[in-house]
């Protein structure tokens, strides 16, 4: 077992435990913000981000805890943000759906599906124009590929050979709607129509595979090959928004989830879990404590930073 694998594993476990803590706290109503958990999808996020350079930027969605933590965001500031506290990363004005960490290159998370894809393209253009050697990663769900702007972005990124990696996290669902009922196109063929190389990781739980694939693609994008599209298949264990499972609602198949979970390293690899758990539990407890004790924003804050 390599150190790189252990580091990825630790990061993925850190995200899962933090989100499980969110689920535990949620019924108390101390977190008054919709939460979209990544549970089941953290392994690929940890592997993806572990294979990027620190200067690479990331633009993603409301399902943002995993990306925030993996990119280096401070867990205490995240919990304080979820609690709506003044010590939160954005002083309690962002909540769960708009985490960011500019110093680590997480430049924004939007609650509007697909809205950040074009931001990544603009950032890629800036990198190219200013001669910066980093790349930009746009991380969005399968549903975002149905928005017209995704096509506009592929077109412009291809036209200008921008250093943008479009990662599509395909969990087969957009809220409660399955892919087959939403998409008449194949992502691979769509990507090919723009002359953009397409890559696939059929199993997002396979962290070494995702890490190796990402490293390869990122190197090409960094080297000036232009944009790439990278689809990672995954399984969302929880309901779309909220902290429960919803297999009893009849829209999805429990057996499919069981099959994913049976392969889940964050369930199976007991020795590694035991190795990291105590330390991670302490970090999470400290973060929750920080959030609990932090002050709420003063009311003057409501009109600050508007213009």
């Amino acid at each position, binding site marked *: 077992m390599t150190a790189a694998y252990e580091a990825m594993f630790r990061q993925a476990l850190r995200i899962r435990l933090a989100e499980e803590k969110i689920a535990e706290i949620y019924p108390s109503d101390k977190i008054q913000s919709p939460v979209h958990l990544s549970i089941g999808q953290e392994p690929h996020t940890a592997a993806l981000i572990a294979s990027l350079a620190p200067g690479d930027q990331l633009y993603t969605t409301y399902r943002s805890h995993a990306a925030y933590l993996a990119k280096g965001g401070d867990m205490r500031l995240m919990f304080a943000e979820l609690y709506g506290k003044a010590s939160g*990363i954005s*002083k309690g004005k962002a909540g769960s759906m708009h985490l*960011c960490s500019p110093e680590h290159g997480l430049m924004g998370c939007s609650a509007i599906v697909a809205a950040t*894809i074009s931001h990544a393209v603009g950032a890629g253009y*800036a*990198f190219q124009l200013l001669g910066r050697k980093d790349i930009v990663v746009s991380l969005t769900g399968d549903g975002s590929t149905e928005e*017209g702007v995704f096509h506009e972005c592929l077109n*412009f990124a291809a036209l200008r050979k921008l250093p943008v990696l479009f990662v599509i996290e395909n969990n087969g669902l957009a809220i409660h709607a399955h892919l087959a009922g939403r998409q008449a196109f194949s992502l691979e063929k769509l990507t090919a129509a723009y002359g953009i190389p397409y890559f696939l990781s059929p199993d997002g739980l396979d962290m070494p595979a995702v890490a190796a694939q990402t490293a390869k693609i990122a190197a090409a994008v960094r080297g000036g090959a232009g944009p790439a599209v990278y689809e990672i298949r995954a399984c969302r264990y929880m309901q779309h928004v909220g902290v429960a499972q919803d297999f009893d609602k009849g829209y999805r198949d429990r057996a499919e989830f069981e099959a994913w979970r049976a392969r889940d390293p964050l369930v199976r690899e007991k020795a590694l879990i035991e190795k990291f758990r105590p330390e991670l539990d302490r970090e999470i407890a400290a973060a929750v404590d920080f959030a609990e004790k932090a002050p709420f924003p003063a009311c003057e804050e409501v009109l600050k*930073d*508007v213009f």
Partner: protein
Amino acid sequence: MKTMTYREAIARSMRGALEKNPRSIIYGLGVTDFTGIFGTTLGLEKEFGSGRVFDTPLSEDAMTGFAVGAALNGLYPIHIHIRADFMLLAMNQLVNSIAKYKYMYGGLFELPLLVRAVIGRSWGQGAQHSQSLQALLSHVPGLTVVMPASAQSVLDTYEYAATKARFPVISLEHRLLYDYSFNLDAGARPADPFTSRLVREGRHVTVAATSVMVADAVNAAKFVSEKAGIEAEVIDLHCLTRPDSKLLLDSVRKTGRLIVADAGWAPFGVCAEISRLVATSDPGLLKAPVQEIAQAHSPCPTAKTLENHFYPDMGTVADAICRLASGRKDHGVELPSADYKRRLYKEFKGPF
């Protein structure tokens, strides 16, 4: 006194932005073609390179979000829409991203950028090539909306935007103004151009106007001064999201009479907003009800006969000033003839 057309002022400002801010970029549909956005971007690609000045695919939504990522990384994007109507495809980015970016992240980011959008008018531009959407945009906290009404306003505002401002600006330029010549340095020049301007002093009636209606108001004020000795004070609101309320209220305190002349629709618009400002600050200043001058509350028709009813002009403003000053509809002042107005207006001949 030196004069300059509105078009020339914009063209100079675009060049100035590229020269004075090495991080500025200018892009949009038609920016590099031989017409160069009505002559305001001609030659810039050649001089500054296609990295900084470029045409785009027909992708208003993506190219507006593009400005976000570019601005976050130190560029100063200037995105141009040859018709303001096309900007509607980018409302998601303008309203959901750009207007929120600073606030939603607790002040961690700033988005200095400029969106220029041209309001079309006349010669049958019709319902989808003519809209004045300042109210729609100004409604949203986080957007700074300007409507430059003179060459000097263009020069001052665009230079400040490209070199000093740290916030997103949407500028609505009026196509009719492009061919107008203006005296430079005429009137007040506020140090921070993002506010209103006193354009003409008067003691009987205050006219608060936007965009092309400022020119109409000035022409009307001159006309009624000559014909009837009525002196109208004209305020160019200019920055709709930061009107100079002191300037406005002081003027209304002096005149007691207010006309709001806006190049848009009245309901929920600038007329409503300026009336709100007075009503909620000091309604006792008014000696008569506010008069609103705006476009007919309909989409813009194409037939000239209908268009004439749709758009107010300097005659509409002159009439309103006389009515308000005399307190009578039949004020007896002879209004400018069609011929007089024809001589005044450089009529726009299409297409484009």
